[in-house]
């Protein structure tokens, strides 16, 4: 009868056998071995003998936790094991459960009864197993069912059970917030004492709870304060400090109390972990306390001087927390920071990079960036991009606050995009466009940089740079009037390798090419008009033929037919805009605008080129590309007839025709030259809603259409990318006529009206002259020093930034950077707290205030205290007044504790305070007084040098803190 199970038991392989077996397998046979073992286990686990079953379960648990074998099928067997009377089976069962159960395990509710039984067991070890298990797998249902058992265990006589029960409370509160009503009071009581493991556990629980919702735990501040002062356990102290970091911002008066004991710990303790926690607490929460900051900085310095990379890293990290408000801390440690830039450890390198950028200022920015870019060239791809990213983000802070010389910065952007590992195309893209719109003076340089990027066919092969190229293309199209050679730009935009670009960016290229075409034609007509008004037809004809003799190449064929076009300065030798040769010496050519020489045939060539490139695209599968190609081709067709066959047509006829063409071109050109100003993100909100506008009507069917459209990321600008931006502005105010139609008078009047109202946000309308570029480019090879040794370089830089605090005299003033005041503030993201949290904090509030109510009613106070604090504040103005007066009166006595004490203890004042608050705050005051007296005594006992009235200032006058604890 018992023999089969006996046989099984005797010949069952134990855990050790399995472990040995797995170890002896080759990696190839391991999985076969394991699957054999699993089969074996499946058989054994069905055994009625619990010994066999539990051994099988143990083996399975092993395979699950080390080899990730699924064991969810064995959940029920695990439950059978924990219901065994034998402790060894129970233990194996609990281990299996806590390793493998999750909320979705179907049988999880079955263990509820067994857990309750074990929680009530007389054997404390069984209790502890059950508690461990509950802390790991507790679900909402389990926590609800077992909350009362856990509560009873919180007052167990065994310390280690009590401690575990407190640990479980964390899970309990998380899953079943109502448990707070039962357990919270007990939890708070457990805070008494200072060094027992119980306190350690409770503080741990509060540390985690307060991370989620600190405000609810503010009333416990005095308790935590006492632990901070009394405890000798470093881990407890660290946790308490973490709690105070959360509480300090909510209650400004806490800081004054806390600074002294924290500094004390920092000075005395030998434990680095505690020192670090103190440092972090001070640098995050107590930045106004100069002496504490000094002490923290000294400790950080000690960390940095150690060889231990951990301490070095944490030291740098702490400095970077200080950096925004206390730059001196960074400057003091500059040597270490700079050296760390070449540390082995990527974490350390990153921190030091952050600090180097924190040190960057107007005066040393150029130098810093130059060195860093050189350093980036030599570092590994990841760090290279970190460097580039931090340069970009530092420079664009507060609308390019640190940048004075934008020409330099734009060329730096160009340089950065040529670094082989650069993956920051998108960021550079945004900045190029942003700068183009904000800084008028930099546009010529911007166009030059963009041109250099566009004509480089190698860049088209790097997909990370595609976004950047789209910005370059947009810049070239938008600011083509600053270009020296639009024809060259056009060719760059239409080069064959653009087929490598994604379609969205290709469309930008096409649109830009179109803009350039319009610009060229427009200036051509402009010249012609000028010319016709000045010179007689005949003369011009002669001159023209003369000039065309100078021309070479295929253009010569058409030069004879160059009807009635001649540049004004045709008597001087001009350079023929090259169609074929793109590499034509850029630097030597005068700017296009000055030259104003655009031949008829070059326009024809442009048209032909565009037609050639775009006609295959009119059949493109991509809608955007196809659309634009067709638009441009249509336009070309319209004007081409008039341009290409001048021979056939009679002169007079031609003139008339060209007038029509020129009119069209002028319209389009007007559309394109209408400047896109930066638009504040809040601009639309400021437009008053007209009365007749129906906004409430439900447009749900629209939602289906627009569902896919995402809102732009909340940046400083609504115009972040060219195509997006254009369409965005369009929808708002029809700023620009994209197609060949004149903007309707209505919209223009609207526009002018808008402009009148928000003049501030528009760029000035008059054209800027091109400023003389009279300072050397940033990467002038003659001025760049040998950068073989980057660190040496950096140290030099460090010295520089230390010495050169004076402002360098700049060759020219910083150009105007357009800012939008309101628009810059990122929209407030309303963070909706989780429901659970709400429940939890709500429950805790209820508990705290409920207790208060009890205390109040026991004092037979007619006023109810159970109303929320806020309400109390609003109603009991007198009470609050008295308190505020007290707080204000305190200020002058700031450094004189004795006088303050006398104030508090002085009968008269005390009385007056009481009588003021008599009406409604009686109970509260009494309570507070009693409690604070208690704490005072307590402190007197423990630490005589502690100010006797320590918490009294922190707490009793704090309207935020209910009194039952004080």
């Amino acid at each position, binding site marked *: 009868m018992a023999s089969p199970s*006996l046989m099984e*038991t005797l010949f069952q392989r134990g*855990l*050790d056998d399995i*472990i040995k077996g797995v170890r002896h397998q080759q990696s190839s046979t391991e999985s076969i071995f394991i699957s054999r073992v699993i089969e074996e286990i499946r058989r054994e686990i069905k055994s009625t*003998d619990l*010994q066999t079953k539990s051994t099988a379960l*143990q083996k399975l648990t*092993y395979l*699950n*936790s*080390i080899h*990730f074998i*699924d064991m969810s099928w064995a959940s029920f067997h695990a439950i059978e094991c924990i219901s065994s009377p*034998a*402790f*060894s*089976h129970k*233990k194996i069962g609990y*281990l299996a459960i806590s*390793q493998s159960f*999750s909320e979705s395990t179907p049988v999880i509710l079955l263990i509820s009864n067994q857990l309750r039984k074990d929680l009530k067991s007389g*054997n404390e*070890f069984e209790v502890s197993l059950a508690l*461990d298990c509950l*802390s*790991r797998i507790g679900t909402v249902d389990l926590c609800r069912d077992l909350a009362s058992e856990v509560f009873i265990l919180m007052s167990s006589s065994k310390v*280690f059970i009590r*401690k*575990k029960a407190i*640990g*479980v409370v*964390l*899970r309990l509160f998380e899953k079943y917030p109502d448990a707070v009503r039962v357990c919270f009071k007990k939890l708070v009581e457990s805070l008494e004492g200072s060094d027992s*493991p119980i306190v*350690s*556990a409770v503080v*741990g629980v509060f540390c*985690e*709870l307060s*991370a*989620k919702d600190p405000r609810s735990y503010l009333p416990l501040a005095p308790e935590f304060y006492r632990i901070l002062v009394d405890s000798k356990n470093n*881990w407890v102290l*660290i946790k308490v400090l*973490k709690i105070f970091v959360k509480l300090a911002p909510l209650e400004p008066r806490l800081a004054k109390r806390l600074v002294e004991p924290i500094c004390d710990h920092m000075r005395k303790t030998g434990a680095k*972990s505690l020192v*670090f*926690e103190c440092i*972090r607490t001070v640098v995050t929460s107590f930045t106004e306390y100069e002496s504490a900051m000094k002490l923290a900085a000294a400790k950080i310095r000690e960390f940095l001087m150690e060889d*231990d*990379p*951990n301490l*070095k*890293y*944490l030291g740098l990290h702490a400095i970077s927390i200080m950096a925004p408000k206390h730059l001196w801390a960074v400057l003091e440690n500059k040597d270490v920071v700079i050296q760390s830039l070449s540390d*082995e*450890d990527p*974490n*350390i390198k990153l921190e030091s990079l952050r600090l180097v950028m924190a040190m960057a200022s107007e005066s040393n920015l150029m130098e810093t960036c130059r060195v860093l870019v050189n350093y980036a060239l030599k570092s590994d791809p990841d760090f290279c991009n970190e460097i580039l990213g931090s340069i970009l983000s530092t420079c664009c802070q507060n609308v390019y606050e640190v940048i004075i010389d934008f020409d330099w910065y734009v060329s730096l952007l160009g340089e950065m995009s040529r670094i082989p590992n650069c993956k920051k195309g998108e960021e550079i893209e945004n900045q190029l466009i942003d700068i183009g719109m904000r800084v008028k003076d930099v546009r010529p340089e911007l166009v030059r940089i963009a041109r250099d990027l566009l004509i480089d066919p190698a860049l088209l092969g790097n997909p990370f740079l595609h976004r950047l190229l789209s910005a370059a293309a947009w810049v070239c199209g938008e600011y083509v009037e600053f270009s020296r050679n639009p024809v060259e730009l056009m060719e760059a935009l239409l080069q064959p390798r653009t087929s490598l670009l994604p379609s969205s960016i290709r469309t930008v290229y096409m649109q830009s090419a179109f803009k350039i075409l319009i610009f060229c034609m427009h200036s051509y007509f402009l010249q012609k008009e000028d010319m016709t008004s000045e010179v007689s037809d005949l003369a011009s004809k002669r001159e023209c033929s003369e000039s065309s003799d100078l021309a070479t190449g295929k253009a010569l064929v058409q030069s004879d037919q160059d009807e009635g076009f001649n540049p004004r300065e045709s008597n001087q030798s001009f350079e023929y805009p090259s169609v074929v040769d793109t590499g034509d010496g850029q630097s030597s050519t005068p700017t296009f605008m000055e030259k104003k020489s655009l031949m008829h045939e070059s326009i024809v060539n442009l048209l032909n080129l565009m037609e050639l490139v775009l006609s295959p695209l009119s059949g493109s599968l991509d809608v955007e590309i196809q659309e634009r190609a067709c638009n441009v081709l249509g336009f070309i067709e319209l004007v081409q007839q008039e341009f290409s066959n001048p021979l056939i047509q009679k002169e007079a006829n031609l003139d008339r025709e060209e007038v029509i063409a020129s009119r069209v071109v002028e319209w389009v050109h007007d559309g394109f030259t209408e400047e896109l100003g930066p638009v504040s993100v809040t601009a639309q909100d400021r437009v008053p809603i007209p009365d007749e506008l129906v906004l409430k009507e439900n447009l749900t069917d629209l939602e289906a259409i627009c569902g896919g459209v995402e809102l732009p990321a909340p940046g400083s600008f609504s115009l972040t990318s060219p195509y997006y931006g254009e369409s965005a502005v369009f929808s708002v105010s029809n700023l620009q006529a994209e197609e060949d139609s004149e903007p309707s008078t209505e919209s223009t009047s609207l526009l002018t009206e808008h402009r009148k109202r928000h003049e501030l946000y528009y760029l000035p309308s008059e054209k800027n002259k091109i400023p003389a570029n009279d300072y050397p480019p940033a990467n002038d090879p003659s001025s760049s020093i040998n950068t073989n040794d980057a660190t040496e370089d950096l140290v030099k830089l460090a010295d520089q930034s230390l010495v050169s605090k004076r402002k360098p005299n700049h060759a020219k003033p910083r150009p105007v950077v357009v800012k939008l005041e309101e628009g810059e503030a990122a929209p407030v993201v309303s963070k909706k707290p989780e429901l*659970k949290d709400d429940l939890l904090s709500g429950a805790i509030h209820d508990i705290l205030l409920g207790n208060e109510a009890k205390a109040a009613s026991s004092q037979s106070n007619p006023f109810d205290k159970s109303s929320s604090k806020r309400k109390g504040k609003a109603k009991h103005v007198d009470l609050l007044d008295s308190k505020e007066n007290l707080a204000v009166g305190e200020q002058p006595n700031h450094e004189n504790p004795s006088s303050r004490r006398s104030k508090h203890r002085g009968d008269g004042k005390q009385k007056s305070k009481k009588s003021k608050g008599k009406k409604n705050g009686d109970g509260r005051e009494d309570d507070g007084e009693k409690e604070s007296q208690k704490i005072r005594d307590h402190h007197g006992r423990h630490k005589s040098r502690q100010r006797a009235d320590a918490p009294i200032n922190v707490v009793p006058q704090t309207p935020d803190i209910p009194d039952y604890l004080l």
Partner: protein
Amino acid sequence: MVWSDLLIKEHIVPIHFVLLVSRQGKVRLAKWYSPYTLRERSKVIRELSGIIPNRGPKLCNFVEWRGFRAVYRRYAGLYFCMCVDEGDNELELLDIIHHFVEILDRYFGSVCELDLIFNFHKAYYILDEILIAGEVQESNKRSVIRLVRAHDSLVETAKEQANPLSNMLPQATI
């Protein structure tokens, strides 16, 4: 694989998991305090055991990993690793790891990797006495050892009672 689940820090657990990984990347112990599915678990281990043992000895003991902080320390050929949220006290974690190792050392008597391989369940029980719900609960080494030993003796007596041979031997002698 839903990693977003991992990144939602909805569970209030200070330590998300504890790992013991050998230099060859073999897992010796894995305790999970935050909920991870089996696939996630093996992925976590694959990733971390690719990162941690490859870090040089002179680097610091903290690794940024998926928005979390993995703190590790090497003892002989074994890496003890704990994962916490960003901004936790890394030095404290190192202390906890050391505390755990000291207790293991005392319990096994100069612990070595083999001890942990063959007593994997005991390592779990010891860890359970030190951490509960991902929170340090006992900082006294001696009391941890005392508790674990008490557990052991309970298991022994239970085993003796349950052992079919010892039950049957008296019957056979009668």
